[in-house]
């Protein structure tokens, strides 16, 4: 009984390590392909598809996150007479943690799933094999443009996220909590430093790489038809989110210790 359980744990660990190794290998292969000039048209196409089209949902998420954060903090801060700190707190929270992580999570759900579903259905309908037969490397053709566009577009989305989150906070602070515009924005100027935004944007570059590589890896290893595509897509979103949360902790320690 115990041996059987240990065997199952061992097997799971081996599968996990194998998958981890494959993801790292795919990332290194993709980086290796960057020596050759990537197809600019494909990269731009993916930037629009994966980045620009994600902007509305990212903005909506961050607007309400900024608003709810202010509702929760402003009331308590006013009680202790610290209403002049609300803007700074909201901005720092947005820049360091909320904007990068929530942008990463939203993009993992929208873009990661789309990448896996698209590449996965190409895999099960032999389109990946067709690419290979036509002397086209699937990593160079499919993975490189997605990795580049995610790594470039996530920081751009992150900037929008910080701005919209802060504006959302301001709307609530000024209308609901009676904090003046001057007080709100002055506190941002007083408390925030460049690194609050820069660190968050550095994080989004990592999160973009995670979403793209996990999405592509799950897609390229899809098996067993339509059911397999569904399973791979779910797996891609879950794995990306978990990795975003874990890496966020270590990136925060590195960037803000």
């Amino acid at each position, binding site marked *: 009984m115990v041996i059987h359980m240990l065997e199952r744990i061992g097997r799971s660990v081996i599968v996990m390590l194998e998958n981890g190794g494959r993801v790292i290998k795919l990332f290194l292969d993709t980086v290796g392909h960057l020596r050759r000039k990537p197809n600019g048209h494909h990269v731009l196409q993916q930037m629009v598809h994966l980045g620009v089209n994600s902007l509305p949902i990212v903005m909506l998420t961050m607007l309400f996150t900024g608003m709810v954060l202010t509702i929760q903090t402003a009331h308590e801060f006013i009680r202790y007479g610290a209403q002049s700190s609300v803007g700074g707190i909201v901005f720092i929270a947005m820049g360091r943690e909320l904007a990068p992580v929530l942008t990463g999570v939203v993009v993992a759900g929208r873009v990661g799933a789309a990448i896996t579903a698209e590449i996965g*259905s190409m895999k099960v*309908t032999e*389109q990946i094999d*067709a690419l*290979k*037969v*036509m002397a086209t490397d699937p990593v160079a053709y499919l993975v490189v443009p997605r990795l580049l566009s995610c790594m470039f577009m996530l920081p751009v989305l992150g900037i929008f996220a910080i701005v919209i989150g802060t504006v959302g906070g301001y709307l609530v602070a000024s209308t609901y909590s009676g904090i003046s515009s001057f007080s709100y924005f002055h506190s941002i100027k007083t408390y925030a430093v460049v690194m609050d935004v820069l660190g968050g944007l550095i994080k989004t570059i990592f999160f973009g790489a995670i979403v793209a590589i996990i999405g592509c890896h799950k897609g390229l290893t899809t098996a067993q038809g339509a059911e397999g595509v569904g399973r791979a897509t779910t797996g891609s979103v879950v794995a990306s989110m978990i990795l975003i949360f874990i890496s966020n902790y270590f990136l925060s320690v590195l960037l803000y210790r």
Partner: protein
Amino acid sequence: MISLKNLSVAFGNKPVLNNISLSVEKGETLVVIGPSGSGKSTLLRLIVGLTKPDSGEVWVGDQEISGAEEDRLNVVRRNMGMVFQYSALFDSMSVGENVAFGLRQHTRMKEEDIARVVRRKLRSVGLSGQENKMPNELSGGMKKRVSLARAIALNPGIVLYDEPTAGLDPMMSATISRLICSTQRVLGVTSVVVTHDMESAFWVADRIAMIYEGEIVECGKVDEIKASSNPLVQRFINGMAHSGAAAKRRPKI
């Protein structure tokens, strides 16, 4: 042109091909027949380098590719085209873009020249003016023909066909068989056709090889295969069930 020497492949513990040797001459059409699961498609995947053999050699022209790196394989693949069983058209691209894919990837042709080649190739498979259709707007037979147009867009020396008539009605099967013959005649390509459609096989083949349980049980010209004394071959080409199970009539009630 293509030479397979002592090839063996197993997936896990299951042997798929067992010490197979086969060669295809330049300009020849070899048809590989055999029941489902006998290793026919694996044979094609070995020739094009999509599957690596456990042992043996795969020669395409003067290149041995069984252990080749992707870069070297890609050089060999530029002289190959393949028609997949389910067509494998890129469904995010139009018919024209599918046919133009190889030209855009591997040549520096101008767009107007590419459009001219695409028009010519589509005309050769009887699909003139279909450039702007999407793959999901096409019937099975049309998809196969676009797949053939895409495979021959770069005028390859070798064309591989994986079950080109599977799932098609008899008239469309005949059309595809005619296209395989005309492609061979016009472009002088070396062709390997994997099929279990005997009518098509007899039509297009210069030689036929039969695979059974991972081994080649017969290989010869069409007449030799028709006259083969091998009971496995006769049962297969005449569409009879496996030994003993054939023709047990139900008693009349």
